[in-house]
């Protein structure tokens, strides 16, 4: 139907563009901006540019600066830490296990720290992942104060001469003031043990989440300075477009993508394939 090239075809184009963007969870405001941008582009360009080609370029530009490396520019074998945070059920514990395996294979000496002392069988769940990744798991007792577990955990990790401690936390509602305060407290405890360039606070979000994921990033980000985002369950084929809003308004880079339930199902964020999956 492109052979006609008339006004009518262009109308359908921007509607499909908007629909694609909304269904990718990019959000109505950003979708509207992009559609306006496309209209401007169509007015100014004479060539017959397909909206998909235009959109891929624009979206790629939005995340081209994304640095998916952790601890970029930080050298040495001294202890570093990953602090995994996020709302309930997004995949933090699973990501902890996957990253433990990933970094162990890269030559890091890793310990997992089971700081979720609240949820039923959370410690047992992380222990299974530690066994699978063949890494040490530092645990406290169920119901213990998470701050204490993290304090003791980092002390133990330092004694063991680990190069990386991955801290799993309990899921929480990002609008629960007490739980955000708890996160802030634990973050300060980490800060007393390690310099900021040796700590990465990573927000874990579900690829199927809607606009609420942006509010999660905004709210949790006020309690703990977030260094990066891990997007899980991308194997659901959800487009995860919310990351564009998170990138644009909060400047948070995406570090890893979870693509399944097995230990190897984690990949460093690749802007090209992410945009490709969204647009085509």
């Amino acid at each position, binding site marked *: 139907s492109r052979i006609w090239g008339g006004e009518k075809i262009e109308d359908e184009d921007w509607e499909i563009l908007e629909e694609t963007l909304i269904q990718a969870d990019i959000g109505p405001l950003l979708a509207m901006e992009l559609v306006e941008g496309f209209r401007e582009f169509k007015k100014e360009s004479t060539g017959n540019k397909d909206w998909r080609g235009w959109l891929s370029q624009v979206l790629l530009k939005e995340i081209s600066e994304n640095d998916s490396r952790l601890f970029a520019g930080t050298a040495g074998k001294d202890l570093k830490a990953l602090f995994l945070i996020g709302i309930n*059920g997004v995949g933090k514990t699973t990501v902890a296990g996957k990253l433990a395996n990933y970094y162990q294979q890269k030559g890091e000496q890793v310990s997992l720290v089971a700081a979720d002392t609240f949820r039923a069988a959370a410690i*047992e769940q992380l222990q299974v992942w530690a066994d699978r990744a063949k890494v040490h798991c530092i645990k406290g007792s169920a119901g213990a104060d998470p701050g204490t577990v993290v304090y003791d955990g980092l002390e133990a990790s330092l004694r063991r001469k680990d190069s990386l401690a991955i801290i799993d936390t309990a899921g929480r509602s990002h609008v629960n003031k007490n739980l955000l305060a708890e996160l802030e407290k634990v973050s300060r405890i980490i800060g007393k043990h390690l310099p900021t360039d040796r700590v990465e606070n990573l927000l874990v979000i579900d690829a199927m989440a809607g606009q609420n994921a942006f509010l999660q990033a905004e709210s949790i980000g006020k309690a703990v300075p977030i260094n990066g985002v891990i997007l899980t369950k991308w194997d659901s084929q959800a487009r995860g477009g919310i990351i564009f809003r998170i990138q644009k308004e909060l400047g948070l880079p995406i570090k890893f993508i979870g693509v399944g339930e097995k230990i190897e199902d984690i990949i460093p964020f690749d802007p090209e394939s992410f945009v490709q999956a969204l647009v085509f």
Partner: protein
Amino acid sequence: QLVEKFSGIFKKLRSKGKLSEQDVDLVLKELRMVLLESDVHFRVVKDLVNRVRERAVGRDVLDSVTPGEMVIKTFWEEIKNILGGEAHSLNTTGNIPVLHLLVGLQGSGKTTTAAKLASWLKKRGISPLLVSTDTRRPAAKEQLAILAHNSGVAFFDDSSCVTPLSMIQAAMSAAREKSADAIVVDTAGRLHVEKDLLAELRELIGEMAFQERFLVLDATTGQEAVKVAETFRDWVDPTGLILTKIDTDARGGAVLSIVAQTGWPVKLVGVGEKLEQLEVFHPERMASRILG
């Protein structure tokens, strides 16, 4: 309170005898953005906006309200109608033991909700038995066993059962022995794109009669909600929805999208992590949430 939010647009609208098409379109444009921001599905928003436009244009504006208020009221009524007039009850009747099945995506809250549901039934004089068929997630059975213990509900497990079907059949014999009149079955999380796992559920439903088959859905789910619901409908034929994590302040548009497309009743809502944080669904409260 909704009217205050839109006071900007309302100032632009003059109070006339009838609502003109332009008046209505101005408000509809704003409301469309609100619904999309609430994660209501693109297509459901389109249908809703068209229906409201039909109802609102040419309508008499009462002296006491402005045109904008009329449009908002119409919207709210339409949403409330989709979500259902009143709260729906659980199907607790049937051959004893009554079987309740919980299915859904990974991390949606099934295990926690299974224990909450068992606790809910217990408070209403029913004696439930909790059982987990999740052999995939690390420590899934331990998680349910602990929650069962905390809620004072019996937990059944037989490590010799390797399939979900054999586990449930063994649970049924145990239920009869213990005079338990309900069995709440937890399942492993699965994606709507994992067809082999959906087939596993379909096979299970073919073999056992479940009085309730709940799709447990995270209230933060975005546009994917309709695809998820329609797939689970085709493979599992749910009898109702349980919405979880409403306490994340998620506007929950996903529930409107799903109910609009499937007509399922929303039976219960999870409002927190504790066992008692399970409530009856209130359509009016949900409608207000969705409208921001």
